[in-house]
């Protein structure tokens, strides 16, 4: 590990000032991702600013009925919070399907949003080519091991996925990421927060180097209990998703008034299945309608030799999540 300066930020502004003055600074949340990456030399910041003492550790009701999750609230606390359990069970379920209790006890909301991919070639500097780790070095996964890689949104430069479970649920709940920086405050809808890799896979989000995430705001959910998070993985716990799916449905009688369908672990970001959503709105909830709609989305998938299985697996996962959310299964 490279030596680095360590400090603890007492105020948000203090943290921002360090980010501004020292470009090679990283914010330290729970450290469950960052410290691992530093150990492997993948992240080599000169400075770490610990933000765990900032007053961002609360979950509050918002006046319009939504909720604000502070950036340093631990994953465990979010999952167990009465407000979340009651109004956003989808989010609690997604969180509890991730990592292990020990990791969740440390991991923060902001850190979870910003966690990096688990692409094998990214995680091990012993592999020469990885555009995300060393821009311009090539992508080892394209013709290599890519069983866990993207079938949506990838590019010829990178097909890594965003591995988070939490963020898939956040996307289905139309979360808005609140950001603070030297130029003031920004609200970035989660659907716009992540960038697709294109030719610059090392730039992953809209967050600029001197900005800090302060909270994640959730509007009042129109779905309530009509929501489901389903995660498929190689073992029953403590494994990242092969595919996952968050679905929320608002029904009028049996007619679908509104729907969110978001795929996880299949794209560089939580992948909102807009085509499927559009096809479903106004339809009667039925197995056929759901199947047709998911097929529409799956037509745009670009699998590779080693991850073709994700297409049928995701389709079945999505159908099951939608049907469960719609109360059919």
């Amino acid at each position: 590990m490279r030596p680095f300066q360590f400090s603890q930020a007492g105020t948000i502004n203090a943290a921002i000032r360090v980010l501004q003055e020292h470009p090679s600074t990283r914010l330290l949340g729970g450290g469950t991702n960052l410290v691992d990456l530093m150990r492997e030399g993948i992240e080599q910041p000169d400075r770490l600013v610990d933000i765990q003492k900032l007053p961002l550790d609360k979950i509050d009701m918002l006046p319009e009925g939504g909720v604000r999750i502070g950036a340093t609230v631990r994953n465990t606390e979010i999952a167990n919070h009465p407000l979340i359990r009651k109004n956003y069970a989808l989010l609690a379920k997604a969180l509890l399907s991730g990592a292990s209790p020990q990791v969740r006890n440390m991991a923060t909301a902001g850190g979870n949003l910003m966690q990096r991919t688990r692409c094998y070639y990214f995680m091990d500097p012993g592999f020469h080519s990885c555009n995300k780790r060393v821009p311009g070095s090539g992508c080892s996964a394209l013709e290599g091991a890519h069983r866990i890689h993207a079938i949506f949104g990838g590019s010829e430069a990178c097909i890594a996925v965003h591995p988070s479970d939490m963020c898939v649920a956040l996307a289905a709940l139309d979360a808005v990421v609140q950001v603070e920086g030297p130029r003031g405050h920004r609200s970035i809808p989660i659907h716009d927060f992540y960038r697709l890799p294109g030719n610059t896979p090392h730039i992953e989000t809209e967050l600029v180097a001197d900005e800090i995430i302060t909270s994640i705001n959730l509007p009042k959910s129109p779905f309530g209990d009509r929501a489901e998070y389903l995660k498929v993985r190689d073992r029953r716990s403590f494994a990242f998703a092969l595919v996952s799916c968050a679905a929320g449905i608002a029904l009028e009688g049996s007619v679908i008034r509104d729907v969110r369908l978001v795929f996880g672990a299949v794209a560089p970001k939580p992948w909102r299945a807009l085509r499927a959503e559009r096809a479903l709105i106004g339809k009667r909830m039925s197995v056929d309608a759901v199947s047709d709609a998911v097929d529409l989305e799956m037509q745009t998938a670009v699998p590779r030799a080693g991850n073709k299985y994700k297409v049928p697996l995701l389709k079945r996962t999505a159908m099951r999540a939608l049907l469960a959310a719609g109360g059919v299964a």
Partner: protein
Amino acid sequence: MTVQPRWRVDGIAKVTGAAQFGADFMLERLAYGVPVLSTIAKGRVRRFDLHDARSVRGLIEIITPSNALRLPNQGIHPELKDAPRIAMLQDDGVYYSGQVIGLAVAESLEAAQEAASLVKAEYRSEDALCDFEAQVASARPPQSGGDAAAYARGDFAAALSRSDVEVQAMYSTPVQHHNPMEPHATIAHWEGDRLTLYEPSQWIVFVRTCIAVWFGVPEANIRVLGPFVGGGFGGKGALWSHSPLAVMASKMLQRPVKIALNRREVYTVTASRPRTQQKVLIGATKAGELLAIRNDVVLQASPQIELIEDSGTVSHHLYKCDANATSHRVAILDTSPTWVMRAPGEATGSYALESAVDEVAYRVGIDPLELRLRNYAEKDQTNEKPYSQKLLRDCYTLGAKRFGWEHRPHAPRSMRKGNQWIGWGMATATYPAYRAASSAVVRISPDGKAFVGSATHEIGTGTYTVLAQIAAEELGISIDQIDVRTGDTELPPAIYSGGSLTVATVGTAVQLAAQRVKQLVIQMAVDDPASPLHQSEPAQIKVSEGELILDRNGARERYADILGRQGGRTVEATAEAKPGQEIERYSTHSFGAVFAEVGVDPDLFTVRVRRFVGVYDVGRVINKKAGINQLTGGAVWGIGMALFEGAQMDPRYGRSVNMDLSEYHLPAHADIGEMDISVLDVPDLKFNPLGARGMGEMGITGAAAAVANAVFHATGIRIRDLPITIDKLIERSSNHSQ
């Protein structure tokens, strides 16, 4: 065994941190070494750029081939023919990716890590062969030759032509890493010309030999200490680069040096179970009689060592079958070395054989258990010898009963529970029972306490407890009055802790030594006019609760009192145990029957082992708790082998892509359902005086096949390439129907 302690004698020490494992020893002026590993698969290091690395504060030295101590004897040496050839910085060659090419030594671990990461190597690359599948065609017989290379019995072609059905199938198993909880670590400390090496090892005596040969020093100058080993599974049965390099660095720098590998380093600096590809051919009659069994095995190997995982051997004797043939060939790859891992041969071989037997059962329409009973081997056909004890039939019967096997419909996809397909599969477990030569010393001190010592090892299996129990029973001294020491080459020498032979071998040595000490004390009492036992018949004196007791009239005296009158002298005896005549007379194997129930999601193809029943005959079980724990752990590993585990090699790099426990999947608790593991516990006194055959490896054998067979029964899909993961199942299912 009368004495069954509730806990391990070293349990408290382990949970409180008092037990010192390899990396735990703190020495004054300790320096820390971190290896620099190659990132190409084959070639030479043309040049090192050490500029940045040298600027690290706290750095002491960077050792590369250009300044490394020249060793008088490196590489293959007649005394070390079983040792893998490992990198010791004696040349600039790179033989695989992840090989040690340098060592940074610093005042702190962090500084050593930083310096190691800043070492830049410029390579001259050569073409490397790292693609197992591509090399299978050019696989050749191993240099070791022998039975492992080729074995044949009976007229195979004739037997096959008489068969009504033929099952031919190719099974493959991936590279597996040992993954003991404690990664490898070494501390080397030279004081003048004497070396102390702290080495968590499964074979400290061999460690001493290797270092003595490599460094050209007398064995007497080397002491190896490894009182606690956090698991080994075979991976700590040899020495890997970090150990001689710690010795070298300590010698060069004149201070103690510690090298503790991290998980990723363990994966390439040490070794792994080889990939296997097994082509099995079985001919059978309609009635299910097995007429011919063949297994042609290709194994991964490396230029460092060609060790044979003799996967085919298990098919030589597991069933009655007159025509049997196996071959083993090696595909040499430029990858990190392969080495023995828990149940080498049987773990992979029983998977292939027991899957193929299941396939035969489906071809002839006979229940898989019934088919096995019809082909029950009453003797070992490889040598026509009877088994010292074979109670496999009882294991089958009892296991089937505990599992409820009689309720099993034969057809695949015929059982459901809720929205799950349910499948039941079974297999036979087997592992040879070995003994070797080992010795132990037992002492009784004037306070009536006993000491037991042997240069064997506590690798997490419960050696301390079991040896204490054996001594306790023999001496009639309670377990808490017995101090057991292992893991020190100053103690009487012992064989490696592997092959499940520690209890049978070292246990027997302890038993013999304890008997001798007891006889000495009895004789003292008998000779001593002051003793109530004076002039008694020694054979009539029994021991219990620290006392010698005369059967006839209950006259008794305590050990402490007898020894007290002898001027406070300690009485001691050393004994060596060796394999006896049992190997000439008998074939010695353990057996078991394992049954698995899986639930499979019919759309998503997630698999879960809901129940697992294993009933084993391993002879006498000295410590039930530790024994069942070993078998359960083995079976859990077998479940993992079936469903999760395996290194994924990227042949372009010669490097596996999942080199950490986040992506190299072992079972989590949630993956394991109800485990019902039991033993018959019938002493096998034809095998050794203890009647115990050992059990460390048994658990993993058969387990993977039972799970794979259950997956077939649930789904109708037979995946012959472990692990059985969702992607493989779903791809096969879409080829089927959906």
